[in-house]
């Protein structure tokens, strides 16, 4: 039986991404996954701001957050509309 100590870096990355549903994102889950990744970036950005460290990483995280927000808006705007109940 393998333990987490025996995992290679790639196996660990695969497991982390699989658990997060990010290896192959289901077509109806893009908005949800973008939101999940945004939350991770926000947590890290808060840490960097709290400790007032990592200026370069802070800038990079802020930029990534902006990118994710932009993508989220576009993906939501292009989302297929649910069927209108009045037409059913």
């Amino acid at each position, binding site marked *: 039986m393998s333990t987490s100590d025996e995992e290679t870096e790639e196996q660990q990355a695969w497991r*982390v*991404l699989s658990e*997060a549903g*990010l290896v192959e*994102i289901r*077509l109806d889950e893009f908005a949800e996954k973008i939101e999940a990744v945004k939350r991770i970036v926000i947590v890290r950005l808060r*840490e960097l701001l709290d400790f007032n460290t990592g200026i370069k990483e802070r800038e990079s995280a802020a*930029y*990534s957050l902006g990118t994710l927000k932009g993508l989220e808006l576009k993906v939501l705007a*292009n989302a297929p509309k649910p069927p209108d109940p009045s037409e059913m």
Partner: protein
Amino acid sequence: MKSTAKLLVSEANWPPEEGQAISFRSSSGSETTILKEVRWGLVWRDFILEDGRVIPEHRISGCPQPQVWRKINEVTDNEREECEERLLSMAGAGMDPRQRDQPFWAELNQYLAYTYLRYKQAECKVEDTER
């Protein structure tokens, strides 16, 4: 008789070369087609087919296990920024990531995977140092 497609590949000569026939899993089952290009994304290799579809390496038959993935710190700032610009440009052009195996779907998948791993790993390191 000569064929334009070379023989199907095995683990011994991985990754396959341009022009080789490769088999992969698609939503409609197993398919075999001609490989146009192999390209590294931010995390894993993508296989670009002659018809423009982009298939992640783990779906290609014969892919060695475990796969080789890039380490997060191997990705340069420039590379990440170029990827972000391409994604915003594709989104701005009205492309939809909900088209499986298309370039926007493939690149957004990799960007989200990369960004998640990058900041998740940073979060784990902070937790470890606080213990």
